[in-house]
């Protein structure tokens, strides 16, 4: 901000202020940024959001707890399962519900598949912004389609899954489902290798991405960033390890870290994270036990959601969504509806640091930087 102010005062005539969006294809939805340009150089950038505000929190405060689950799908619509996961564990914390063993495994398997879907999608779209027009995106979508077909088979919907319930999951994974997941998991490394052959060492990609949009570890931590954007800056912070919610402490996986915190690191951290997710999936598929998928105590509430009244109190539940720390804060006053419901959306908080990343760079780089943060406007604006 200071830089832009100083420049504005000295040579105001030289500065051109333009609006990117809200309907620009590079802004990933209805997002606007006001960019101040000096020639081609960015000397100020202000993100403006709120175009997709749908009153999510207020709507939720007027709904029974179970009905909110369907609305959480619409937060981050690229990976609805992570949102379901976050909301479910918050309410379980609030009501003190246990989750059966098998349901925990089903949850982890679904959430990790959603992470794979999210990461390949965002890499594809980031490269679209870069000008690698649709070739990487189509390869990514080809693989994504297989997983989405599987989601449709298991949950009933490709994107708006609405799959988790308090104390379990909606439907059990059949043997055929598990075999299909195993097939996808075993085939995925071959695709990743192909994807990396296409991109990782590509000189054009390296030139456009390396040393662009650098974010130091200190700035990233101070701004409260989470997720791959923070880890690309070299900060080892992953809620799956820090909190080890659900059963993540039982799996052996690493947290990939970047060095410089530029756009290339953010791309590469995501590729590595897909590999780690596949590792978790492999272990989960090998270890998944037989048993119940719903807590017996929670079963009656499936038929009578309005009878579900958590005790008076508050709870904050968080999960490592593919975009960062997704948190739900719910206050209960003993009625069937939450008294207060708040979402800590990772996209929104990651977006606030956009100006720091873009200052002093060319305008074309700002678009790639925005793409590398991985925002979904459904979650940002809620």
């Amino acid at each position, binding site marked *: 901000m200071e830089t832009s102010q100083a420049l504005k005062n000295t040579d105001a005539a030289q500065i051109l202020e333009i609006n990117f969006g809200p309907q620009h294809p590079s802004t990933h939805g209805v997002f606007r940024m006001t960019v101040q340009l000096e020639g081609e150089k960015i000397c100020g950038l202000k993100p403006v959001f709120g175009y997709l505000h749908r009153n999510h929190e207020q709507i939720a405060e007027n709904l029974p707890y*179970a009905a909110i689950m369907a609305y959480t799908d619409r937060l981050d619509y690229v990976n609805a399962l992570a949102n379901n996961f976050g909301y479910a564990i918050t309410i379980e914390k609030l009501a003190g519900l246990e989750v059966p063993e098998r349901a925990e495994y089903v949850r982890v398997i679904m959430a990790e598949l959603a992470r794979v879907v999210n990461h390949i999608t965002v890499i594809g779209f980031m490269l679209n912004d870069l000008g690698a027009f649709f070739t990487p995106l189509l390869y990514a979508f080809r693989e994504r389609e297989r997983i989405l077909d599987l989601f449709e088979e298991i949950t009933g919907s490709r994107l708006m899954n609405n799959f988790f319930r308090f104390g379990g999951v909606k439907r059990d994974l059949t043997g055929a489902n598990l075999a299909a997941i195993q097939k996808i998991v075993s085939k995925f490394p071959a695709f990743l290798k192909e994807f990396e052959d296409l*991109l990782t060492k590509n000189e054009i990609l390296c030139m456009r991405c390396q040393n662009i949009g650098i974010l130091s570890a200190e700035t990233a931590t101070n701004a409260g960033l989470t997720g791959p954007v923070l880890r690309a800056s070299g900060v080892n912070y992953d809620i799956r390890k820090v909190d080890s919610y659900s059963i993540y402490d039982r799996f052996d996986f690493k947290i990939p870290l970047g060095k410089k915190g530029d756009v290339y690191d953010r791309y590469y951290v995501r590729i590595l994270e897909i590999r780690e997710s596949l590792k978790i999936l492999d272990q989960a598929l090998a270890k998944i036990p037989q048993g119940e998928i719903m807590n017996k105590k929670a079963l009656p509430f499936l*038929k009578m959601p309005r009878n579900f009244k958590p005790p008076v109190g508050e709870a904050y539940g968080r999960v490592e969504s593919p975009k960062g720390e997704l948190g739900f804060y719910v206050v209960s006053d003993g009625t069937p509806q939450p008294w207060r419901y708040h979402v800590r959306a990772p996209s929104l908080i990651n977006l606030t640091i956009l100006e720091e990343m873009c200052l002093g760079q060319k305008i074309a780089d700002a678009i790639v930087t925005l793409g590398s943060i991985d925002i979904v406007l459904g979650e940002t604006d809620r």
Partner: protein
Amino acid sequence: MNVFGWGVFKGMVVTFKNFATSYFRKPDEGGIFTVQYPEERGREIENFRNFPFLVYDETPEKLRCVACGICERECPTKCIHIEMETDAAGKPARKPAVFDIDYGLCMNCGMCEEVCPFDSIFMDHAFEVTAPERSEGLIRHKKELSKSNGYFQKIRPALASAVDQKRKAAEEKKRATVPPPATQEPK
């Protein structure tokens, strides 16, 4: 290899390989997988859920729905509207006189299907619900929503047979516990 341009070359090899192999590989293995809708149709997935419909057993008059209004109350978007039928004396007839679903509001979450205690509302597979006029077909009435059990069996065989079995068992149990009232001899 550290020759400048080698990475680009390797990428080109990948795209060329994808282009060439797409002609003779199977759709599942990376071949061309375009489906020429509407002449061809993709595989139907049983669990797929779209807008809800009402099941009737033999004739459209014999709807399973008893107009209890649970789905109406639990629907997150409040897109269901039910009015119970009354007979001439004004007594409720345990049948819906009006059953409307607002397709503009429904978000296909499947909550109604889950809460229904009478196995009467289920999620459909019909996705071709467009109309030539903008406001046409937004609100679906009872007549369009009622579909036979045969149709339900066709689109979701596993679930439908499970539901049928459950209903049959419940009926038998009911018959066993409550003996039918003795028929009066005609005078």
